[in-house]
């Protein structure tokens, strides 16, 4: 009987505790929302004036509850603004010690805190914050590694290119897209490092380098990219090199890309190669694409039709001709012409 009563009492106590927790949680959430609304209403005008080059703006002393709200609010502005306004706001954070505090938080125990600190440092964009962020590329928590890679991209030091590329390797890699986005943010100054990386031993590093070179429109790297669409290279790298060559758009790439449309190549390589040819759009491309419009693979034939539309008037002329002829490509030609005539983009992006 004693055991039963104790079990009952403990269970009732736990239930009562949960009810209390529920009510307290609600009260805490409401209070936090109220504080956030009050601080936002009070400080938003000051931040806007600071961004608008008003030297008389003074941020009042904030309590421990209010400081994080202000930090989050200002970070929202920092993400959205560029130029002098951004620099003024960032300088205010450096002077107030918020940046130094965030550097310290990069070493704290909780992964959420480290990720938030890295994100904040990236948002401020102070170059001195990079050394604190860089070790986080090997953090045990994925969200911290992602936050660190993004932060280094926003901080914008070209010296960080090797660290970002190396972060793709190992048993704690940073996601490919995150690294590629960050490298793109670093701009043309990253191109020499990327051209070197394209010759490296790691597959994902080469793939990332190729992708970013294309995104940056690095015309000087055309030969490097052409060297890596050779069949001895992995398809992951070849596809990204072909896409990059399409983005760069140099006519020098037409012949090598046309060779990738050969039936001996994989479907994914051919599908990307025809879209790249469409983007290049140089003389001779239309004839080569026209031959591939009858391809047996739906994705390739569809991409060829879209690429012909990308080629402008010569491509449309070929499509009109093929639409009236018998053959597998007629249906694709008719669909592409219909879509082009209404101005609707082709459904889906090239894959």
């Amino acid at each position, binding site marked *: 009987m004693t055991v039963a009563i104790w079990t009952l009492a403990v269970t009732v106590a736990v239930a009562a505790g949960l009810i209390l927790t529920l009510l307290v949680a609600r009260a805490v959430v409401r209070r936090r929302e109220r504080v956030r609304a009050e601080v936002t209403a009070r400080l938003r005008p000051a931040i806007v004036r600071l961004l608008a080059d008003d030297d008389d703006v003074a941020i009042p002393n904030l309590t421990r509850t209010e400081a994080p709200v202000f930090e989050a609010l200002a970070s929202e502005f920092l993400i959205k603004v560029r130029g002098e306004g951004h620099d003024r706001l960032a300088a205010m954070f450096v002077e107030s010690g918020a940046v130094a505090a965030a550097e310290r938080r990069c070493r704290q125990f909780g992964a959420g805190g480290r990720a938030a600190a890295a994100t904040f440092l990236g948002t401020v964009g102070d170059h001195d914050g990079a050394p604190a962020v860089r070790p986080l590329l090997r953090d045990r928590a994925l969200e911290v590694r992602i936050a660190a890679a993004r932060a280094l991209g926003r901080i914008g030091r070209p010296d960080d290119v090797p660290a970002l590329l190396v972060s793709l390797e190992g048993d704690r890699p940073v996601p490919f897209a995150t690294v590629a986005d960050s490298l793109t943010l670093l701009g043309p100054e990253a191109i020499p490092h990327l051209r070197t990386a394209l010759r490296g031993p790691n597959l994902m590093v080469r793939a990332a380098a190729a992708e970013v070179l294309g995104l940056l429109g690095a015309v000087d790297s055309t030969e490097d990219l052409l060297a890596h669409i050779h069949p001895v290279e992995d398809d992951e790298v070849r596809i990204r090199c072909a896409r990059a060559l399409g983005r760069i758009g140099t006519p020098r790439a037409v012949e090598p890309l046309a060779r990738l449309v050969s039936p001996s190549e994989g479907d994914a390589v051919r599908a990307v190669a025809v879209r790249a040819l469409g983007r290049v759009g140089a003389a001779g491309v239309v004839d080569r694409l026209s031959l591939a419009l009858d391809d047996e693979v739906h994705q390739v034939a569809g991409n060829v039709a879209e690429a012909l539309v990308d080629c402008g008037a010569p491509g449309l002329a070929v499509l009109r001709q093929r639409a009236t002829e018998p053959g597998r490509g007629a249906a694709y030609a008719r669909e592409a012409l219909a879509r082009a005539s209404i*101005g609707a983009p082709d459904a889906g992006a090239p894959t």
Partner: protein
Amino acid sequence: MSELGVVLSAIVVIGIVGLGVVAAVEAVTAALGGRAMVGALRRRRAMHDESVLASPLTPPIALIVARPGPDAVDRIRALFSLRYPELEVLVVDTRGSGTAKRLGEAFDLVSVPIVVPKLVPVGVTVSTSVVARDSSRLLVVEVEGDADIADLLNVGANLVRSRLVCALHADLVLSDDALLRLARPFMDDPRHTVASVAAARPLSGSTVHHGRVVATAWPPTWLTRMSEVDHLRSVVLEATLPSPRALLRTGGLLLMRRDHVLELGGFRSGWGSPDADLFRRVVHARLLDSPHSTSVAISTPICWRVGPETASELAALSRAEGLATAQLIDRDAIQGHRRLLPRLGVAVRTRAFLVPLLQLVAGLAAVIGLAIGQVSLALVILLAVVAVLLPATLSLATLAVEELTFSREGRFVDLGAMVVAALVEPIGVRQTVAWWRLQGILSARGEADTPVAEAAPPAPAPAPKAAPAEPAAPPVEAADRQEAPAPARPIRRRRSASRRRRTGR
């Protein structure tokens, strides 16, 4: 003590042990689920995902909406207001539903002769295809004949071209960043992620306008409150590991790679929940192919659906859920796990049957025994604890998690009513729902290979009066031009066949 007393006491003890084990397992699962959900929310606050919006490497997503229903226009508009850079929306319905006409007027659609590949086999032909004149990436198709949901979804899988595919339930309400959260695992680990799944949360009482939540609130009636308590408990219990049960019990969101969908032959007809079935098949096939494959459960609240508002709706939903669960287990056993777990279907049925049976029989034995003085009060108290108080405590814990992760507007008295509902729900209501689910499970007995009616088909939409801008052109069937549908990957046994992870996205 008489022989009757010994029998009654034994029944009560069995009830205490059985229900105690179930309550303990649920408590541990709920604790892990609650931890995952709260942790996910913290991580979400720590990271900004704005860069994903601007990234050219963000994978395009195709949303396939089959039978969008009479408020299709609002729902599709809501989809296009989602924050995602590369979105393709494909609406599929049967001819005569009026969907193309309704959407045609709202989105300025014009007919286009599209090529319809048959990458996965479909038993219907496309009769109408229209695309948006502007850049909204909307394609609407209507098919001939009597098509079920799986047929419509397969037409969509054939037509979409994005790398990731999501079969969207028409009644789901999505948060602004739902697709960003759902696609995040594919960006973080594109080689190994095969699926991401999010359980839908209940939304009874909240105000939904044009497919968006404009005001949150707790449910207004006692039935919806108790139904919501049950729903929330399912959400928390399923938050730890990605599982088709999240789709079965809550009707959630599932994002998969299109090539995996095609590889396994697409959605299968005759299923209460075709996406749960596909999720199960894809995860199994990929795990057996590569032990590093992962599927990810999204713990943050990203989608909601309005729950049943009447007892008959709740009964129908519970029966459909039971039916779909039984189908999933039966087909799964047929597909290769029968040797490993030869009685898996029987075990699931037994568990679903056992818990309400234990509650009923042990409860009756306790009441009778107590009345005739043959069962000790201590046993009755222990039974009350494991049968009523522990489940009620678990429900209170899920309410606390909901309040911490998705705080709703409203008065304290509304929250108090939810607390009362959580305390009362284990007494009678839960048993009734369990009985309805059991009916659904039993109705699937022996019908594993027989197509059944869909779980909850939306009502047919009334045809609008106005005509579309242009007459529809016949689409081009390309069956003779497409490659043969990819055969399902043969199932091979490997040692590591279960690696899933929870996440904080």
